[in-house]
């Protein structure tokens, strides 16, 4: 069986890095702001779409101010009729709750993930490529652990665990078990 080729956005930190490190370097392409790809810029997304076109799986991981939604739409537009391709949109637990009025500093983050989930579900029935939306509990990335020093191991999963969920063939199992 041939090795699948992956592309991922946001591969230099956190969960994206864990996924990127897990796959053989020759089988994955990473795109991050720090390596010259800003998903909020249309021309940068065009370059990502072009360079990732021959991959089999696109992991839409980087998230910033609706840039992740645009990234999904742009990738879907070119892959929509190709049955061998797969797009995995990385969601967040924030999309599973109703945002409390006291947490409106998170409104844009929350809205971006709601949008990603809604658009994934709404478009997927007609696309030939596979479209997945996967989310998991809080992840203990370095940034998150610095922000929430009182977290115990009960409160989060490791980036490696999150990478397993993303790359698993049966995401439902993990989702149900962990939520």
């Amino acid at each position, binding site marked *: 069986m041939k090795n699948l080729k992956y592309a991922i956005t946001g591969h230099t930190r956190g969960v994206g890095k864990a996924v990127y490190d897990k796959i053989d370097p020759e089988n994955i392409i990473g795109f991050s702001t720090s390596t010259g790809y800003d998903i909020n810029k249309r021309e940068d997304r065009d370059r990502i779409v072009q360079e990732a076109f021959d991959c089999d799986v696109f992991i839409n991981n980087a998230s910033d101010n609706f840039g992740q939604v645009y990234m999904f*739409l742009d990738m879907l537009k070119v892959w929509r009729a190709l049955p061998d391709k797969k797009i995995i949109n990385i969601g967040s637990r924030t999309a599973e709750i109703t945002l409390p009025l006291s947490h409106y500093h998170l409104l844009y983050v929350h809205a971006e993930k709601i949008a990603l989930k809604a658009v994934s579900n709404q478009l997927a029935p007609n696309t030939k490529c596979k479209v997945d939306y996967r989310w998991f509990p809080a992840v203990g990335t370095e940034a998150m652990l610095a922000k929430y020093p009182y977290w115990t191991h009960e409160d989060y999963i490791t980036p490696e665990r999150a990478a397993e969920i993303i790359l698993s063939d049966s995401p439902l199992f993990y989702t149900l078990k962990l939520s």
Partner: protein
Amino acid sequence: MKYAITGHTKGVGKAVYDRLNPDILGFSTSTGYDINKKEDRARIVAEAFDCDVFINNAANNFGQVYMFLDILKAWRALPEKRIINIGNRAGEIVLPLSHYHLLYLHAEKTTLKALSKELTPNTKCTVEYRWFKAVATEAMLEKYPQWTRKDYLTPDQAADIILADEFITQ
């Protein structure tokens, strides 16, 4: 009742505006308010703050979604306020693969609909999402000359739906 509306110089927005004038503030790109610019949305929120009803009508490349979020942030704890998000029949269908030139429009309306529903259980202000079938604005009739009268609503009929006390699903 004092109203505010975006996109008041054309189509459905104009029909609503003309009916409620002078009890309505209008904000359009042509009058200096671009909903895709953060600073313009901040001015709209400030100037519309004392209104009772905000009709989020102008749509452009997710700008309508941002507009909703920004006014909601300011009004979320105020029970007497009301936001009406104007949807579109595009938000009701699974987009056919042949129609992906409408992808951004479809995604914008799908998002607006999802957010209207997902955020409202906690908000004190009222949030509504109203949509209707095709509207025969001048621009649309020029684009689809084959339309007959039963294919569309007039802008005035759309304004009726927007301003009705109860939203009747189309």
